[in-house]
């Protein structure tokens, strides 16, 4: 057992007025070097799971811990990157990143220097003084990632961060995320409904199904480590093993959907 892990222990969440729980008996362990991806269709509870790990939603049953300490609310040790609307449009790119440092009481000069270094890391050194509302979707997500890296977080929790991006930008962001993951050494928990994205990024992939939201399968794809070792993205995504896993996941999801449909009928 990894004592330094971010862990969900038999977590269930039931929202008031809902007939069935959004999450039922979910256990998960995200180790210090892990990039865990929760994959599933809408309504499978993956956002609820992220909200529980972030401390935004308290579990109805079970508990969440980070390095053994209970999580009772949001905190700077778990930075969250959202798909939309999370940046501060009245600040420029550098100040958005520096905002995380300002909240920690870092002095102006130092936080600007550190923000610029982080922007260079995500390929946005040239846009430091641009207003964020003039940026493209992909650039905004880079700012969001740089800002999360500026916090003293031990985990990055990412809520479908690339869901609104076009296919080309999405693939660029996926490889950028892997670089960031390698350099920062932080654990990442990412949720997505994109099977290829999940397979490519995850060191551990948890497949979730609705009615109630639960984990139905766990696999360790390993393609991210192969990309970091130098294999090209396209070669990996057209690898027979990648395609076979993709088909397997699609088939599993379809079977669970059919089973759920039968139950509700």
């Amino acid at each position, binding site marked *: 057992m990894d004592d330094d892990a971010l862990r969900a222990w038999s977590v269930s969440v039931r929202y008031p007025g809902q007939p069935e729980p959004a999450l039922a008996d979910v256990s998960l362990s995200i180790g210090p070097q892990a990039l865990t991806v929760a994959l599933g269709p809408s309504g499978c509870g993956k956002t609820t799971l992220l909200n529980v790990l972030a401390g935004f939603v308290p579990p109805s049953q079970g508990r969440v811990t980070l390095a053994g300490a209970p999580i009772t609310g949001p*905190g700077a040790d778990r930075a969250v990157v959202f798909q*939309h609307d999370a940046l501060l*449009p*009245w600040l420029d790119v550098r100040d958005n990143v520096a905002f995380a440092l300002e909240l920690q009481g870092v002095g102006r000069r130092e936080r600007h220097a550190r923000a610029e270094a982080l922007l260079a890391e995500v390929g946005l050194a040239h846009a430091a003084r641009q207003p964020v509302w003039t940026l493209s979707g992909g650039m905004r997500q880079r700012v969001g990632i740089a800002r999360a890296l500026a916090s*003293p977080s031990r985990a990055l929790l990412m*809520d479908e961060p690339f869901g609104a991006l076009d296919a080309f930008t999405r693939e660029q962001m996926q490889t950028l995320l892997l670089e960031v993951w390698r350099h920062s050494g932080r654990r990442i928990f990412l949720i997505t409904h994109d099977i290829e994205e999940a397979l490519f990024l995850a060191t551990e992939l948890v497949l979730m199904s609705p009615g109630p939201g639960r984990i139905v399968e766990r696999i360790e794809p390993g393609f991210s480590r192969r990309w970091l070792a130098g294999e090209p993205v396209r070669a990996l995504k057209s690898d027979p093993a990648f395609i076979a896993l993709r088909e397997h996941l699609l088939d599993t999801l379809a079977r669970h959907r059919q089973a759920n449909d039968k139950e509700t009928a």
Partner: protein
Amino acid sequence: MPSVFSSALPGLTGLSAPRWRLRLRHPLTLGLFSVALLWLIWQIAAGSGWIQPLFLPAPQAVLAKLALAAGQGFMDATLWQHLAASLSRIGLALLAAVAVGVPLGLAMGVSPVLRGLLDPLIEGYRPVPPLAYLPLIVIWCGIGELSKVLLIFLAMLAPIVLSATHGVTRVSPSRLRAAQSLGASRRQLLWRVVLPTALPDILTGLRIGLGAGWSTLVAAELVAATRGLGFMVQSAAQFLVTDMVLAGIVVIGGIAFVLELGLRALQQRLCPWHGQQD
């Protein structure tokens, strides 16, 4: 054939229009055109003799009266003294309405309990015409300056409070949660996330409030005033000096419009992201 967009959003058609057409469609050009057209219609209507000067004096007569009021004065005060009296009342009322309305609106936006308690009161008094509660204010506060400023203040307060409340409710949960996950305290969330997000709405509330304040000015200056643009207009109306009535209306409209333009420019400067993709 015009597209759906060109009929629904005429500004979009300008994207491919020649430069001279773009200039013609500039808001300033269009605004000047509408003012010039109104002036022309007024000139024709007054100059043709269709309408007696008692009911509609010619524009030049109004301008002459304005010059007279500026130089020699009207009702024991020059135009500038009337203007200063009105502007000080509007300014004081605006300061008080911002000082009370913005924090109250923010608090109502943050606290559903406070919103539940105060919303019926504010929404209840908001549609009541200021003239309806003017006698009550005179009974409570007398006929001094306080009554006049209070009446304008009350007209301004409701739109400022409601706009600030609405601004707070527009803060996206993602933005709040992202800031929380970066370690923002409750106070930091309010000052660094909620207030700047609500700022465009607060400024819109100020614009609406200022408009309401100007429209209440005449009623406020019914209360034993000796100076003020509203007082000037009422006095002129009592003596059927129609050109002075129109001169007062032109000044009130002009000043209110200039202040509105100033607030719009401030909004554009402070919140350039507003209305953009954010």
